[in-house]
């Protein structure tokens, strides 16, 4: 793989992380707002609210995994133990 190829892969990794991070942030903003709103009236919803709030974290986790696998395609990175 040439430098250009490696660069493209690195860019893809960055894009993957940016996309999934923004998606997670947006989703958490919405859910977090709703959770806080509900909790303001019913504090006993804390547990449920927390669970709902963190669900979108899966998105960036997938982004992380995909990014990690993509990184493996770059020979220079793969060479590092």
């Amino acid at each position, binding site marked *: 793989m040439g430098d250009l190829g490696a660069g493209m892969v690195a860019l893809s990794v960055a894009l993957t992380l940016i996309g999934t991070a923004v998606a997670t942030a947006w989703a958490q903003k919405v859910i977090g*707002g709703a959770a806080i*709103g509900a*909790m*303001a009236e*019913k504090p006993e919803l804390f547990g449920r609210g927390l669970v709902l709030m963190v669900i979108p974290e899966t998105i960036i986790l997938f982004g992380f995994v995909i990014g990690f696998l993509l990184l493996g395609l770059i020979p220079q990175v793969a060479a590092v133990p």
Partner: protein
Amino acid sequence: MAAGNTVADYLKRAVDRLPLDRGNYPYVTARVKAKKSLLLPVETYERLLQMGIPAIARFLGEGQYHDEMLALGARYDGVDLVEMATRDNLATVFTQIIGFSEGSLRDMIGHYLDRWDVWNVKTILRGKFYGATAEEILEDVIPAGSLGLAFLERLVGLETIEEVVEALEDTPYFSAVLGLTVAPGEVTTLAPYEDLLDRLYYVHLLEVIPPASEPTTLFHNFVRLEIDVTNLKTLLRVLGVEGLQTRQLFIPKGRYLRRSDLREMVKLDLPGVLRRLRNTPYHDTLAPYLQEEGGDPARGIRAMENWLLDQASTGSNLHPLSILPVLDYVIAKTREVENIRIVARGKESGLSVEQIREMLVV
């Protein structure tokens, strides 16, 4: 407000259609839904019916009316206490909702809640008209709209109707009540002016919130449904009453019922009205009460109120991230307060449990 055709107007309308973040919908809807779940459940009314008025006050004070009961409990008792606590609570809760909403959502809620301005203006005018004391009037004032308590108190403090009208000059309601000052001696009833105030409120409401985007369209449609229900209630009340046909009773721009139709229906009997409603969603709800001559229009009115509650609640489930959950809560909360007051007043005047139960809308 005529739609202009300048470039700026086009731009504004274009922007209105953009799916921009125009309010903190998730927060507000989740919060009002939580609030709605804290309203008294149906079974509770059954228990309230078995309680005495002091016990009702105590029970309310252990729930959502806690702060109000603490503030008023030492000074008032009986029905007064229940009425004042529910009144204060209503004002606090609605002001709070406006407080925590943002953007165009806040505007819509604010305009919708201006109905309390109309209510207050009516209350004050009526009080002045029938010579009630300032204290008596203030008991029924609910400062949940745009007119603040200080302003309302000033209005209540004024001596005559003319002064009240004058003080309303900067509000949107001035034009409706202006007629009261033209020939004060000739005013024998406030009813036409009250109708005018209602009409003004709805016309203004539909005008300031044009159906430009999905949120505003939902709002618009629901308000027009509410206009229909209000008109139907008016219709059922005045049916068969002589001399009202000349008055402008109805509010324009209802969703399914046109004003011209309603004006014709005033002259019909109950089955006739029902026939005219055949192609509207209201037919099935009203059918049991209007089928025969005589019927039971009073229960028909309650059925319509119930129907609107159901519509609000259905709409709020279909469009969970819209303004509908808020409207749903506003209506349900208002209904709860009215129900509590019905129970308390019914108890006070010695009605039987069955009679009071009959009057509740749950």
